[in-house]
């Protein structure tokens, strides 16, 4: 069941994200425990619970961009840590890139992912290979853009992004961290997936599933 990327999709995406983040709270805490400070799952769960509470309470925002902007502001004020500002910026830039469109087409979907990714890089200054969420967002962006230029449907663009993010997250395992808290471990950071890269894959997978997309 393929869905248009409209405001309802954006709301579904965010609710689905909250659900999978809650479901994977312990996993994300545990990934962060090994090479960080054991809070990533707790932080995101707190943040996306607040996001859902806001969706439940307020008037539904009128555009996909308005949904994402509300998410950005809520994450910024409830998550804290590194992930709060990074995901906050990502959703804010994503919202900005969508403008006031009521529906997101394939090119706009790819552009949205790039905007999010570029926002994270602008704030966090991490490069590909530093073992951060950038290692999931970057291949996601590239795959989304490739799919969009090849004429994929919007849901297909999101599915491509999600699959690439997932692969990117898995590929962080052997890396030695050079940014974020895991970098303090030096070589001991190798051998574990980066929690932020894994949560990125979850978020993009939620976007895809909210669009009815199939994720491999």
């Amino acid at each position, binding site marked *: 069941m393929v869905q248009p990327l409209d405001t309802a999709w954006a709301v579904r995406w965010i609710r689905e994200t909250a659900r999978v983040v809650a479901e994977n709270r312990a996993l994300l*805490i*545990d990934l962060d*425990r*090994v*090479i*960080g*400070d*054991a*809070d990533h799952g*707790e*932080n995101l769960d*707190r943040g996306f619970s607040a996001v859902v509470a806001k969706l439940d309470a307020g008037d539904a925002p009128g555009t996909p961009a308005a949904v994402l902007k509300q998410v950005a502001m809520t994450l*910024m*004020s*409830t*998550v*804290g*840590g*590194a*992930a*709060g*500002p*990074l995901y906050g910026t990502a959703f804010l830039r994503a919202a900005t890139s969508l403008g006031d469109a009521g529906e997101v087409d394939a090119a706009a979907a790819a552009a949205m992912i790039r905007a999010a990714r570029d926002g994270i890089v602008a*704030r*966090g200054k991490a490069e590909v290979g530093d073992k951060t969420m950038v290692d999931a967002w970057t291949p996601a962006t590239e795959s989304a853009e490739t799919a969009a230029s090849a004429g994929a449907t919007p849901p297909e663009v999101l599915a491509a992004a999600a699959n690439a993010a997932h692969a990117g997250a898995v590929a962080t395992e052997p890396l030695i961290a*050079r*940014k*974020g*808290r895991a*970098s*303090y*471990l*030096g070589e*001991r950071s190798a051998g574990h997936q980066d929690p932020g890269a894994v949560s990125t894959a979850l978020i993009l997978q939620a976007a895809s599933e909210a669009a009815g997309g199939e994720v491999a």
Partner: protein
Amino acid sequence: MKKLINDPRAVVDESVEGFGIAHADLVAVHPDPLFITRRDAPVQGKVGIVSGGGSGHEPLHAGFVGRGMLDAAVPGAVFTSPTPDQIIPATSAVDGGAGVLHIVKNYTGDVLNFETAAEMAEADGVTVRSVLVDDDVAVEDSLYTAGRRGVGGTVFVERIAGAAAERGDDLDGVADVAQRVVDGVRSMGVALAACTVPHAGVPSFDLAEDEIEIGIGIHGEPGRHRIAMEDADGITQRLLDPIVADLRLASGDRTLVMVNGMGGTPASELYIVFRKVAQLLDGLGVTIERSLVGNYITALEMQGASLTILRVDDEMLELWDSPVHTAALRWGA
């Protein structure tokens, strides 16, 4: 996990509430968004000093709010930096017209959240300067990393910057002396046993009965490497050596020394470490002008200690000795 807590998610709120009741003569707790200010904030004409970061490091930062130290502390969730929507009102609340200094420990999360808050507070008309504390010699300082962490040196920066602000220095002056402390302070830590983050419920790392972690931070993260257990004198040497090397401490240097407990270490052990530090520095011809021995910047109930050394000059010493009245540090007042 056994802790004297109720709901793990209420730990910070309830603890700060208790702190506020116990120290109602000194501080005011603002519950939502959560931050703590001096009872008499804002002090007109004085530079305001704000610090904050993840909780779990008590008495840092709330325990250092009061005359001669911080005007506001902003506690995040356990080991999670606070958000801009806490930092911004804390900043405004302590602006007495002379601007506000943010003392930020160098962690990605703290840096990003304080950066955003500073930008927004400036937009609201508050002049903000920031100083970044990065004193942990266990971490490599390079362009290609997140840089050194801020640990024990934060206590010295907060005290000395707070004293300068109390003296009436302007914002640039306070920021400059804070930066001088950052430049002259280095730390190194060791863990004998990990802590357990309340919402995680399991120890942050596992150590065998005969292993210790060298070069740990204050967030329960593992250290740089793991070695076989040693006696206190041996461990102290391992903490001291990299600090002496990094600061190039030499005969005639004068220092401020802190032997800090990570939360679960008895005072008696900290004094055994301090004894060895004193002996070793004495052997190098380095003078300990002042010292702190106790729990000042902790990692929940972690067992272990950290050593912090600041090379001081007369001005810093004078600022150090000036009156301070906070829950955790008090003299002359």
